[in-house]
C-alpha cells in the first residue's frame, strides 16, 4: 500500500487549523460527528449561490438543476453502498429517523402482539427506544442478545434467541461506545435461514469501512451523513425494493403522493413515497460531495490507515497505569473507550480540552453498555482518517499529565 496521504487530507479540512484554548485542535470526537472537508462546504455554498430551487416541482431551469444535483447525490449513495437501484435509497434526517421509520411502517405492518424483535446489548439508544415504544404500543416483545466482557456479542446466545416468533433482527454494525464490529454476515445468514428481515444500524460503520448492502444481504441499512464527513440533518435508509414497496408510507404530505382528492390519495413511487415535504436539499448535495471525496481516497485505504491508528493508540494506552480500556473486541473500529482509576471521565474531558484535545466523556447514548461494565461513563477517543499518530501522542501525554495532577 502506498503511504496514506494524511497531510493532504488534513489540508482539506479547514477546521483542523483552528486553535482551541491557544493550542492546535486535536479532534478525537469523530464517533459523535466528523468534521467537513472544503469540498463538502463548497458544494453547499455553490448550490445556494448558483443552483438552488425546490426539487421535483418546477419546470424552470433552477428547479431542474437542483433536482439533478439532488437525484445525482442519490445515485452516488446507491453506488457507494452498492444498492441495486436508487429506488432503494430513502433520504431521512439521520440514522435515528431511519430506524423510527422502520418501526412506524415496516414493523407496524408486520409485527404483532407476542412477536419478537431481537437487538443486542450494545445498541445505541436509537436502536433501543423506538422498539420499546413500538412494543409498548403493540404488545410485541423486545429481546436483547448479551455481550461479553470484551464488548463482543455472545453469538451463540444471539442465535438461541432467534425463534419462530422473531419478526425482525435489528443490530448495530459497529458499536459507538465500544468500537466492536459485529459479525453481521453471520447474523444475517442466521436470520435469513428463518426468513427474518435484518436492519443494520450503520451509523458508526459507514465512515470506517466499505459497505456493500448486496454482499451483506441485509434488508435495511441505516446511516447518518454527519458521521460520514457530510452535513448534519441528513441520513439514508437503504431498503430492499420489494420490502419498501410493500410498506405503508411514513409521513404524509407533498412529494410522497401521485394523486390527491378528498376521497382518496394515491402514493408516489419509490423512493418518494417515503420523502414527504421539501427535503434537506443542500445537505443531500453535501452528502454526495462527501461520497465523491471519500471514493477518491478509497474506503479500504481509510480502513487500513485507521486500523493502524487504533493499534498505535491501544498499545500506548495499555502502558498507562490506571487506564482501563472498555471494549477490546477482536473485530474493532477506530474507537478507544477508557476509564481512569479514580478520575471521572468528565474531569478527563475538561482537562484534555484545556490542551486542545476534543474527546467525548459520558454514556455515549448507550446507558445499558455503561451498566454492563459498571461504570457511570467512559472517556472516548474516536479516530478519523485525518488523525495522526502525533495527535495520539498528544492525547496520551495529556492523559499521563492529568493522572499526575489528580494523583
Amino acid at each position: 500500500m502506498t503511504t496514506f496521504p494524511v497531510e493532504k487530507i488534513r489540508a482539506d479540512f479547514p477546521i483542523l487549523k483552528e486553535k482551541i484554548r491557544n493550542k492546535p485542535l486535536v479532534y478525537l470526537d469523530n464517533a459523535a460527528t466528523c468534521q467537513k472537508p472544503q469540498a463538502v462546504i463548497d458544494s453547499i455554498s455553490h448550490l445556494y449561490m448558483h443552483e438552488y430551487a425546490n426539487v421535483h416541482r418546477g419546470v424552470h431551469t433552477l428547479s431542474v438543476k437542483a433536482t439533478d444535483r439532488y437525484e445525482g447525490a442519490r445515485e452516488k449513495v446507491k453506488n457507494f453502498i452498492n444498492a441495486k437501484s436508487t429506488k432503494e435509497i430513502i433520504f431521512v434526517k439521520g440514522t435515528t429517523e431511519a430506524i423510527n421509520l422502520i418501526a412506524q411502517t415496516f414493523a407496524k405492518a408486520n409485527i404483532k402482539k407476542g412477536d419478537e424483535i431481537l437487538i443486542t446489548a450494545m445498541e445505541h439508544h436509537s436502536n433501543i427506544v423506538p422498539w420499546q415504544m413500538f412494543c409498548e404500543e403493540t404488545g410485541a416483545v423486545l429481546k436483547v442478545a448479551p455481550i461479553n466482557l470484551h464488548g463482543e456479542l455472545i453469538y451463540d446466545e444471539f442465535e438461541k434467541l432467534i425463534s419462530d416468533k422473531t419478526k425482525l433482527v435489528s443490530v448495530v454494525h459497529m458499536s459507538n461506545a465500544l468500537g466492536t464490529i459485529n459479525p453481521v454476515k453471520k447474523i444475517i445468514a442466521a436470520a435469513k435461514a428463518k426468513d427474518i428481515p435484518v436492519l443494520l444500524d450503520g451509523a458508526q460503520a459507514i465512515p470506517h469501512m466499505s459497505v456493500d448492502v448486496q454482499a451483506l444481504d441485509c434488508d435495511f441499512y441505516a446511516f447518518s451523513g454527519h458521521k460520514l464527513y457530510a452535513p448534519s440533518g441528513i441520513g439514508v435508509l437503504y431498503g430492499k425494493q420489494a420490502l419498501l414497496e410493500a410498506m405503508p408510507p411514513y409521513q404524509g404530505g407533498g412529494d410522497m403522493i401521485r394523486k390527491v382528492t378528498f376521497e382518496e390519495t394515491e402514493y408516489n413511487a419509490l423512493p418518494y413515497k417515503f420523502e414527504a415535504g421539501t427535503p434537506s436539499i443542500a445537505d443531500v448535495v453535501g452528502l454526495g460531495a462527501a461520497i465523491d471525496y471519500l471514493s477518491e481516497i478509497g474506503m479500504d485505504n481509510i480502513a487500513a490507515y485507521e486500523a493502524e491508528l487504533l493499534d498505535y493508540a491501544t498499545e500506548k494506552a495499555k502502558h498507562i497505569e490506571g487506564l482501563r480500556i472498555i471494549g477490546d473486541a477482536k473485530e474493532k473500529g477506530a474507537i478507544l473507550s477508557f476509564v481512569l482509576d479514580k478520575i471521572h471521565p468528565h474531569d478527563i474531558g475538561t482537562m484534555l480540552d484545556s490542551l486542545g484535545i476534543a474527546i467525548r466523556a459520558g454514556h455515549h447514548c448507550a446507558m445499558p453498555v455503561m451498566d454492563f461494565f459498571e461504570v457511570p461513563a467512559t472517556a472516548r477517543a474516536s479516530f478519523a482518517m485525518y488523525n495522526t499518530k502525533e495527535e495520539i501522542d498528544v492525547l496520551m501525554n495529556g492523559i499521563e499529565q492529568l493522572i499526575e495532577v489528580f494523583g
Partner: protein
Amino acid sequence: MFDDLRDLYQEVIFDHNRNPRNFRVMDDADRQVEGFNPLCGDRLTLFLKMDGDVITDASFQGSGCAISTASVSLMTEIVKGKTEAEAETLFTQFHEMTTGKEEDVNLEAIGKLAVLAGVREYPARVKCATLAWHTLDAALKNEANSISTE
C-alpha cells in the same frame, strides 16, 4: 501544563475529591434524597438529620466527577447547623455564583464555596457543581425522593 484550569480545579477541590467529607450512609436520617445527572450518569444520595428546622447533620454517598464530589462534600460541611431558610439562601447564592453574573455574587457570604466559582466559565460543567444543591433543595422541600438536573 493545566494552567488554564487553575480557576476550575483549585487545590481545595482536589482535596475534597480525594478525601470527601461526610461520605457515609446515615442510618437514622430524617431526609434521604437521590440526585441524578442524566447528562453524565452521576448519582448521589444525600442524607439529612433535622432538629426542627435546623440541619444537625448531613452526609452523602455516590460517585461523580471531582467538581460534583467536591461540591457535595463542601455543602455537607457548610449546611450543618444551618436552618432550612439559611440553607435555601446559600443555595440561591451558590446558584447565582455558578450561573449568574459576577457582580451579583457576594463571595464572602458563601465562604469556602467560592472555590467553585470557576465553573461559571465552563457551561458544560455547571450542573456538576449544582447537582448537590438541587438535591438539598429537594430534600428541604421534602417534595421527592429522587431529583434530576434535567
